[in-house]
């Protein structure tokens, strides 16, 4: 009996230890990332995030990044969030407000770090003890001011997406500012590619493009239509192609990627998301595109050019 029990006990103990050690052997942390569409602004943020995270962890934690690039619509965002929750990742990172809201909607216990979220009232509308991150704020009034310095502005078109919360809040804020200054507002709500045709009948003096994911997915088409009608456009995302936008006023992507990586490393090393204070970036860069100005027959006064962080010639 004793001789039979002994090997059995050894086997049970071995299995027990192997099982107990299994999580340690598979200590690799999995990070789920949701980056809407193929938007260069979020791409730059993510690139910085990955580089910074690797540097910060110094190989102390093996990490695997599962990247989701949903199409910008509510069902795709929701599916991407559910997939990552089903994968049981250790951390979810989101870029932009719609992806962040989709994860929060699922009420998962997985910690969430957000970046690239536009903060309308000074703080991101993210209310969860499992979530922290960094957002940005761009003073939209400056865009109206610079447009007014360049040409008569009696009407402004606002390109936004009614299914993206932050884009809607930017539209509302800009509309209020414009109306205070007796500037007529033409709203251009883009929810799908078909909606781009809405731009064709519009004929405002200038167009402001909100931080909408779907608008940026079809940005080239939007700008092409505006160009045909000699309508200048401004954006709060940088213009990586340096073509089509007259001016951009944006918060650079890299600091947000760096901060998201810093927060991620803290969470992976055991800190609770609730104990990490969210941050709002307020520093901006102002870029004027003189090539586009020439196409539009707009002359930039020197006193305006000196305000720019960078001038594209």
């Amino acid at each position, binding site marked *: 009996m004793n001789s039979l029990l002994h090997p059995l006990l050894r086997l049970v103990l071995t299995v027990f230890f192997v099982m107990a050690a299994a999580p340690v052997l598979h200590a690799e942390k999995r990070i789920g990332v949701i980056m809407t569409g193929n938007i260069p602004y979020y791409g730059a943020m993510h690139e910085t995030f990955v580089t910074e995270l690797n540097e910060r962890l110094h190989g102390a934690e093996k990490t695997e990044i599962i990247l989701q690039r949903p199409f910008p619509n509510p069902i795709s965002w929701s599916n991407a969030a559910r997939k990552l929750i089903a994968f049981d990742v250790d951390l979810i990172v989101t870029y932009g407000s719609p992806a962040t809201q989709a994860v929060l909607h699922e009420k998962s216990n997985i910690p969430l770090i957000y970046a690239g979220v536009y903060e309308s009232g*000074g703080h991101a509308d993210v209310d969860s003890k499992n979530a922290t991150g960094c957002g940005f*704020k*761009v*003073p939209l*009034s*400056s865009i*109206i*001011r610079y447009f*007014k310095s360049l040409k008569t502005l009696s009407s402004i078109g606002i390109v936004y997406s009614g299914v993206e919360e932050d884009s809607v809040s930017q539209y509302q804020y800009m509309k209020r*500012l414009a109306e*205070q*200054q007796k500037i007529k507002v033409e709203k251009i709500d883009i929810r799908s590619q078909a909606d781009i045709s809405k731009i064709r009948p519009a004929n405002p003096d200038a167009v402001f493009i909100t931080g909408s994911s779907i608008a940026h997915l079809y940005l080239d088409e939007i700008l092409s239509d505006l160009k045909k009608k000699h309508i200048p456009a401004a954006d709060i995302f940088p213009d990586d192609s340096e073509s089509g936008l007259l001016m951009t*006023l944006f*918060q650079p992507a890299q600091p947000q990627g760096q901060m998201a990586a810093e927060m991620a490393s803290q969470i992976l090393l055991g800190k609770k998301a609730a104990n990490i204070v969210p941050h709002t970036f*307020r*520093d*901006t*860069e*102002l870029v004027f595109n003189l090539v586009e100005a020439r196409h539009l027959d707009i002359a930039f*006064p*020197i*006193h305006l050019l*000196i*305000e720019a*962080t960078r001038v594209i010639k």
Partner: protein
Amino acid sequence: MSSHPLSNLDGFAKSSQADHPPTQYQQVTYLSAAVEGVFTKPSNLNLCKKLIGCLLICLFSVTALPVSAMDQPEELLIGIEPEHNIFDQMERYRSLAAYLSDQLGVKVKLTIMSRYGEVIKRFKFLNLDGAFLTSYTATMAINELHLQPVANPVNLNGESTSQGYMFVRKDSDIHEVKDMQGKRFIFVDPATMEGYLFPLAYLKQHGITDINKFFYRFDFSGSHASAIFAVLDGRADIGSAKNTVYNRLVNNDPSIRQELNILAKSSKAPEITLCIRNEIDPRLREKLSDILLHMDETSAGRKVLKLFKALRFVKPNRADFVRIEEMAQEARAAIAEHGK
């Protein structure tokens, strides 16, 4: 013989003395005549002495000529400190220069000084006769170059003074000096009271002497409007600029008032002062002052004032410059600290 040394000179400078106060040229003639008087005892030497006296007069007169010419310039070269939009600024000053040329009988020419801090250098380099200077540069020029303050323009709001505003965006979470730590400050130029001396003096009063350590970064915008735009756009967290520019921008765009919060204000100082070189003939300086101080009394003058965007000119108060110097001294400790 008359006791007056000029009595031996056959009235050469007599009429000159009677008509006008003595110039440097005339002082030279007094000196020569006095020299002559010492040697007039022996009668046989009189002719010789008179000849020597005449030669001395000629020699001294020739050497004194360039100085005399500087007192009565054919034109006045006046410097202007650059504003945000120098084209608008030149347009405003051009009409004033034309009016002054006409009234003075001396051509008044304008030149823009490339930046605020160059006043002292430019005066020496370009031989400027005067300049329209902002409060701190005027104080420096009065102290270092002994310029004479002649007149201050009164702006369309009825003010001849300006004050510094220190401001932040309303949504910035910066409410007092301690909140400014680690933030980005935008000054205007080291030679401005409103855009540099005032914030430094204010910070020093609140215990901040090393702005290098206290701020994450600080920059100079080069103009008051640029400092305001930098904070509005989020390119800086805190800024300082003069109230007159701030008010002008707010009048053009009322949304600015809704977006900025003024945290501190400096005391008032003369915004612009026309300062003239001390060596300029006092009569010309007086005439210039008279023309400016009374130009609102004629329709031609009022027309020029309208283009210049001023109501009138007023006489400067020297005590104002003393107050600015006191502020400069307070700020200087902080300047020395961060300038290490």
